[in-house]
């Protein structure tokens, strides 16, 4: 039984991990905690839905198309909004992304209404796979696999490619990176794009489990954000670990203690952890200069 619970926790955790990873990527390169991450993913999922339902395109075309849209949306957020801020401080940037979140929520609600829709994907939710005594639906298995694959490719991107090197350099010291000829403006924009794509994958994986409506990403987004904070916002591996810990603990709590308070246990853990470790479990605490 406990194995099954942990398995379900890992499925939830991989969704949280994707969102947490997306948020901490942008946070590291621009100090923006992007609250609009969830709504951007929701918007991209709606784009996939339109391509599937209205234009009758095959699933993979729609999937790639929505990821492309998500990338452009990320670029838009960076170039049209965040870079335009006159004297950006942390508080103002945070509120800008909150504003963008409400804006996208209103836009999607206006365009597609608030009714719940069904996103058809070619992976079954009812057929199950069994291994090592555990039962898991094909969709959940695919969710875990895709999430792990995506995380691995982010790791490879950051570790072994020139673009990854430029991203890391920008994250460490923007001025120094610029002096060395790295187009930091574009690098930050691309980070926003990549984050948005990661979020969109999470959105497409989520939509068949819940349903497609404007509210679908609010809770996963808050949980993903909480997971990122739990793991320590500036440590990508820590963020992923935090997400899996959160997913598993939440599920165990829901079964053994109380299903009613399952949705808030995440935040209680956060407040307690932050009280003892103000920069998360695995985050590095850096002292600020006066």
């Amino acid at each position, binding site marked *: 039984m406990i194995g099954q619970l942990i398995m379900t926790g890992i499925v939830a955790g991989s969704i949280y991990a994707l969102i947490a990873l997306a948020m901490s990527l942008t*946070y590291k390169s621009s*100090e923006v*905690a992007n609250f609009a991450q969830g709504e951007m993913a929701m918007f991209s999922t709606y784009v996939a839905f339109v391509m599937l339902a209205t234009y009758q395109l095959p699933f993979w075309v729609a999937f790639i198309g929505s990821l492309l849209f998500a990338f452009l949306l990320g670029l838009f957020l960076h170039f049209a*909004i965040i870079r*335009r*801020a*006159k*004297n950006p401080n*942390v*508080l*103002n940037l*945070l*509120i*800008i992304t*909150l*504003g*963008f*979140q*409400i*804006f*996208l*929520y*209103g*836009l*999607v*609600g*206006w*365009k*597609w*209404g*608030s*009714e719940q829709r069904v996103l058809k994907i070619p992976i079954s939710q009812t057929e199950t796979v069994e291994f090592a005594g555990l039962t898991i639906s094909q969709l959940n298995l695919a969710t875990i696999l895709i999430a792990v694959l995506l995380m691995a490719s982010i790791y490879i991107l950051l570790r072994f490619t020139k673009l990854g090197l430029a991203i890391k350099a920008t994250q460490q010291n923007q001025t120094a990176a610029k002096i060395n000829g790295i187009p930091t403006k574009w690098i930050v924009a691309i980070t926003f794009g990549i984050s948005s794509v990661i979020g969109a994958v999470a959105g497409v994986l989520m939509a068949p489990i819940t349903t497609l409506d*404007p509210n679908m990403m*609010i809770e996963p987004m*808050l949980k993903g*954000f*909480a997971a990122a*904070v739990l793991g320590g*916002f500036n440590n990508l591996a820590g963020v992923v670990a935090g997400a899996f810990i959160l997913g598993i603990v939440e599920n165990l709590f829901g079964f053994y203690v109380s299903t*009613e*308070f399952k*949705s*808030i246990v*995440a*935040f*209680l853990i*956060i*407040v307690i952890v*932050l*009280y003892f470790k*103000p*920069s*998360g479990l695995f985050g590095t605490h850096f002292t*600020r200069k*006066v």
Partner: protein
Amino acid sequence: MDKRISYFEDISLLKDNSVVGWSFFWLLLFGLVPFVLAEYQVFIANLVLVNVIIVLGLNVLIGNTGQISLGHGGFVAIGAYMTIILDEQWLPFLPSLILAGFVAALFGFLLGIPALKLEGPYLAVATLGFGLAITTIIGRMPFFGGHMGIMPPPLKVLGMEMTTNMDFYYLCLIIALLIGVFARLLIKSKIGRAFSAIRDSDIAASALGVNVVRYKTMSFAFSAFYAGIGGGLWAYVLGFISPGNFTPVLSILLLSMVVVGGSGSITGSVLGATAITLLNLQGEKIQELPLIGPFFEWVSANYMSISGLPNINFLFMGLTVILIILFEPLGLFGIWLRIKIYFKTWPF
């Protein structure tokens, strides 16, 4: 901007005679407003006043102390539920309202303790979690009426029964006035200067002998007290509350009122609360407006969806917040300042 002659101008409530004159003018205007408005408009004015009370407190936290809170909906909920429960069984209205404010302040103090070490996104998540936790706990406990919500008892203040919206209006106006004056006095006192010092740099402030721990928690408790008072009044103005009223959306709305009005200013709080409340209410039924209404209906029918039209108020709200931060970081108060300076220095 203005020329200052003595230090006492900085700490006095009303700076000079022209400010006294203008204060009387606005007071008179606000006092007479409900006579020219229709019944429903007075109700909206009540909502505006309640939001002004909450935003006054939140602005001290965000604008003056530089902390962020995404959980103020939780404090509003505590104030609303405590007032109703106390008023129903134990105490008259005014003592229960004040006591509810203090209960909210106690929670604010408790939230302020972990918030001491946190900043930026960490603080945002901690406060957000607090707000969510409060609403969930209230929604699951039968004592608080659960998801169905509860209704306040008939309102009786100092032996007078208050039933109409106009009665509520004067009650809210008097409380908002008292609370606004208190906030202004606080900002102009030693405590207010300590808040500003912490906002500008908490390390420098503590080096200068400001007790950061004390003033940060005090700021949280203070803004929670205001949210509690506002919540208590809100419950009576609406006539019915349920956990659905206190979602994170409410906290975000309150935050956007602070930003749109102008952070760190009392006038800004009033302007922001008024503007966002009206925008939010009007946005939900935009098709009733002349000229703009039919246009949006046409756009909806051709490009968007008619059923989703009420969601357009979120779109406007988000756009307003983004545009204000990008082009006028001081908010509506900044625009007002610029107009004032333009006319003062005219023709130059």
